[in-house]
């Protein structure tokens, strides 16, 4: 399996704080790679660094063999990397329709087919099609955020804690949508909900104190109680 994304020993500062102090991981094409770790370990910063939102000070990020470390965010997005941020990034004053339209890079048949598929999966978005994004519930906002990312044929999707603060029924929906996306794109997922991570993930990387400390197959991690207790706080 070919490597789509290669993150090599990246270091990122936010203000005076040295957040990432050597994070490395590889993402294979067609897989779901899960970044795990406690709160504040550096998972979200890793995704933001890949997108250029928190530029790296050291290290290298290769996407499809090209060094994207120094590129501006919009160039990185246009290379085919979609991002679903932790805070959903919904444009509150735009309607659901406008939020979707703005994310649409093309309006071809394939995109419209994906739109139909995602609206079947998230019928709430259809119901509130003309409603402003700011008036949606937390779950609906997350659905919209994922739907926007799914619309375009991105080669890689970075999804940050999609289940955070959602009701179990919505988490199921979100998980279902990620499974759908998995067939078409490669995913890097940051997730605290271990059950969800287990359900969708192929490979895991554990990040602790701004460093990647362990990697392996998700199934192996399920049986490794010591690792789970040490780095994830799961008893």
């Amino acid at each position, binding site marked *: 399996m070919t490597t789509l994304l290669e993150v090599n020993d990246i270091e990122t500062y936010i203000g005076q704080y040295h957040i990432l102090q050597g994070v490395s991981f590889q993402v294979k094409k067609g897989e779901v790679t899960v970044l795990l770790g406690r709160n504040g370990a550096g998972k979200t910063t890793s995704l933001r660094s890949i997108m250029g939102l928190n530029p790296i000070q050291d290290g290298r990020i290769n996407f499809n063999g090209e060094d994207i470390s120094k590129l501006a965010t919009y160039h990185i*997005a246009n290379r085919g990397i979609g991002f679903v941020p932790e805070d959903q990034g919904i444009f509150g*004053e*735009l309607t659901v*329709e406008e939020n979707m339209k703005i994310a649409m*890079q093309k309006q071809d048949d394939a995109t419209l087919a994906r739109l139909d598929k995602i609206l079947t999966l998230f019928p709430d978005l259809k119901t509130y099609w003309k*409603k402003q994004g700011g008036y949606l519930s937390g779950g609906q906002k997350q659905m919209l955020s994922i739907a926007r990312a799914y619309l375009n044929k991105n080669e890689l999707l970075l999804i940050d804690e999609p289940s955070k603060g959602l009701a179990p029924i919505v988490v199921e929906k979100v998980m279902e949508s990620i499974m759908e996306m998995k067939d078409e794109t490669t995913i890097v997922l940051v997730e605290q909900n271990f059950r969800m991570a287990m359900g969708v993930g192929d490979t895991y990387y554990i990040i602790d104190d701004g460093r990647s400390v362990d990697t392996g197959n998700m199934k192996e991690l399920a049986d490794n109680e010591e690792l789970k207790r040490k780095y994830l706080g799961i008893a």
Partner: protein
Amino acid sequence: MLTQIFILAIFAMSYDLLLGYTGIVSFGHAMFFGIGAYSTGVLLSRFEPTLLWLIVSMAVGMVIAAIVSYFVGLLTLRLSNHFYAMLTLALAGLFLVVAEKWRSLTLGNDGFTFRVPDIMRDRLSFYLICLLLMVAVFFLLMRLTNSPMGKVLVAVRENEARTQSLGFKTIHYKLISSVVAGVIASVAGSLYVMSLRFVNTSVFALDVTLDALLMTILGGVGTLIGPIIGAAIIEVSHHWLTELGKFYAIFERWIIFFGILYILAVMFFPKGIVGSLREIRWKRKPSKVKTKNKNKRIAG
């Protein structure tokens, strides 16, 4: 008074494009108003006050405003909002100082009078021209803000980083907004000095920008119709308070009342008149749609 309302409404709408749609807080918008004002004043005072020279003077103002706003934007729009606001304030101050010192052209703060074409001397025709221009600017900006580009401007205002991560080079959109707003402000400046047939350095003053800010906030930011309402309220209040000043001395200090109004509007009415009404409507609207023609609408 209605003519003044129309002119100030044009100016306030241009400010709304910056503040309401793109989220750019500028304290130097008077700079473009002043450029339009001086272009018209200087050219009409030095050449024959014909319709041709009037059009040329307005066009010159628009071109200079476009160039200045482009370069000011290029230099400043990459900065965070606070620094941008401070820098535009400094640049507007610079223009004011240049206008004060360049006495051979501007006669400094004393200013100068000039003649205007006959069609502009007739009150009714000038009123109608201002009304027409206000309506034209309104529809032009309405079209711009309802276009896909306008939606990107709103997205930039709400979350610039997120807009970039959707693949948009946001600085381009901010520059377009800044140039369009600058050009429209220069048109308002040209009309304003034509209504007075006099121009002095007060057109570059901070008060001019603050008036636009107050009109926009009071009427409702990001609504376009709001700044027109705001301009009407401010202009009518100004007129009444000045009249009342003849009977009660306190009303001679009408600017104090505007200051209080500004504080109250920001504290209790941040979305302004139109913004608040729209919010009530959005909250009520369930906006369920049939899905049958959904794809058509998206593609259209």
